């Protein structure tokens, strides 16, 4: 069965997106992509050093990988828009993950500024993937603003706490006619699997792989978890039942 994810004009086989920060060495990245089968990587534009041959993280990202530059470091829409334009001008393509954070304590995204930036960048032809709190109204505004996907957080960035916003993400999955990519908070493969079982279109994660003792093995585990979760979703999970389904019902005799 074909089960491709389409974002903008791109078909993706893998539903695992990976971040590139926090690694002890960028040289781990190719192996991580290979083992996880990930096709989309996000890179903070503020970290890309285009002027340096040796220290340019882009050197470690295989050419056939879809680059998703992000606006990490932006504190408002203006800064995010500037970073996005610079990313495009620097040859990073026209995908952009909008990340606007003006709270360094909890690193929660600013929905209002994100909507503003999305509207402007989408009108300029960007494929915009905004990172937001899982708020239905914000997500609806993002649809109207021209976003190509919505990336709600499972729990705060880097917290590894798992899908704490489960109920809200479920509402987005039900209501929003765009791919929902769960971003942030995924700490273990079972969290990623859970997001996929719920019907999320993809998962994005970084800390859980980058800070693991064996990032390459962990990347492989996440690749498999996302695949497993997706398959379970497609297969359709059995309904949960809170009443007993006894094989010999107590009231069965009435029908005899």
């Amino acid at each position, binding site marked *: 069965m074909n089960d491709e994810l389409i974002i903008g004009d791109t078909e993706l086989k893998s539903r695992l997106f990976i971040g590139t*920060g*926090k*690694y*002890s*060495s*960028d040289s781990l990245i190719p192996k991580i992509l290979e083992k996880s089968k990930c096709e989309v990587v996000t890179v903070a*534009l*503020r*970290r*890309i*050093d285009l002027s*340096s041959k040796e*220290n340019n993280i882009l050197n470690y990202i295989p050419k056939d990988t879809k680059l998703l530059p992000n606006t990490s*470091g932006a*504190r408002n829409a203006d*800064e995010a828009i*500037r*970073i996005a334009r*610079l990313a495009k001008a620097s040859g990073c393509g026209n995908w952009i993950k909008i990340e606007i954070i*003006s*709270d*360094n*304590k*909890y690193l929660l995204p600013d929905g209002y500024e994100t909507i503003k930036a999305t509207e402007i960048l989408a009108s300029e032809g960007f494929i915009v993937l905004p990172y937001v709190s899982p708020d239905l109204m914000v997500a609806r505004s993002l649809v109207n603003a021209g976003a190509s996907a919505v990336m709600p957080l499972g729990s705060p960035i*880097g*917290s*590894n706490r798992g899908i704490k916003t489960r109920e809200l993400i479920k509402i987005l999955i039900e209501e929003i006619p765009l791919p929902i990519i769960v971003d942030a908070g995924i700490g273990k493969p079972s969290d990623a699997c859970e997001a996929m079982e719920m019907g999320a279109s993809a998962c994005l994660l970084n*800390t859980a792989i*980058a*800070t693991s003792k064996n990032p390459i093995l962990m990347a492989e585990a996440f690749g498999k978890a996302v695949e497993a979760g997706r398959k379970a979703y497609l297969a359709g999970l059995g309904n949960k039942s809170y009443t007993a389904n006894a094989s010999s019902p107590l009231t069965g005799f009435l029908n005899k």
Partner: protein
Amino acid sequence: MSFYDIYSRYKDFDIDSFYNNISDKDIELILQKDILNEIDFLMLLSPKAENFLEPIALKANSLTIQHFGKTILLYTPMYLANYCTNQCLYCGFNTKNDIKRKQMSLEEVEAEAKYISSKGIKHILILTGDAKDISSVEYINSCVNILKKYFNSISIEIFPLNEDEYSKLIKSGVDSLTIYQETYNEYIYDKVHLKGPKKDYRYRLDAPERACKSYINSVNIGALLGLDYWRKEAFFTGLHANYLQNKYPHVEVSISTPRIRPHVGDFSPYHIVSDKNIVQFIVALRLFLPRCGVTISTRESENFRNNILPLGVTKMSTDSNTSVGGHTNKQNQTNQFNICDTRNVEKMMEDIKTLGYQPILKNWDII
């Protein structure tokens, strides 16, 4: 409200009697907590907590990796001038010291910038003495305009400014401010700053906050360890960082833990701060403020810097020279203080990699 109100709350606090009443159990309980309050932090700085240094360090290590990953940002300082109108007892640039004074011309700034950036450094920290007539805001602004052609991030470590002046420099491309209170103890502050504008304790104390109000990206604060009892200085530094983080969540806050270094002049520290003390400061801080940056300069030795790297450190200077134009002009110049770790950028990067960390040269961009 300013941080001074919080300082005032604790300034006469009898820390010794407080520490006498702490038990092992208190420290064990703090180690179980996810979110620490001010008193927990004070307890982690206690002599009692020294018995728990290893478990605190383990927790600090995992929190640092969780929040910052296995990366260390590198930057280098660049001294624009050493003119100074102050008499700080602990500093080689003290106006009373008979040293050769110099201010770099804009051409020299450009040459220095070109040279430093050719080594791969992308984050620069510019410093001047406190001589507002000579190293004026306009002069610094002109330097910033040159430097932004060569560097992705420009930090300033200069005399305190008012909000308008900070705004002006930030608009030109400055993204980060370093300013040390030197000592939070008001009485000692007065004693070691004999003369000059720096005598104004409050104006300096509120400088990081003025920069935050001017929408700066990051501030780095600290005390010059050795002037007062280190546990108090560490406590106030942590409280100050916490205050700024809570009130200005858009700002990245970092802390430095500089110890007094040998310099021209004969000042010796009032209190000796050991390696173990610095470790306790850093790991306690990491548990109190998991997202706070920690900067360690080349004042510390190569060996010590390598060993504390995993404990909470997020930024390090490299290839430092504390004399004016010292990167390109190797002639005998007076240093503000003597540096200890003399590794160049290449060696520093190599050593960080050997320790299993990634050196980051570019983490910010003036866009």
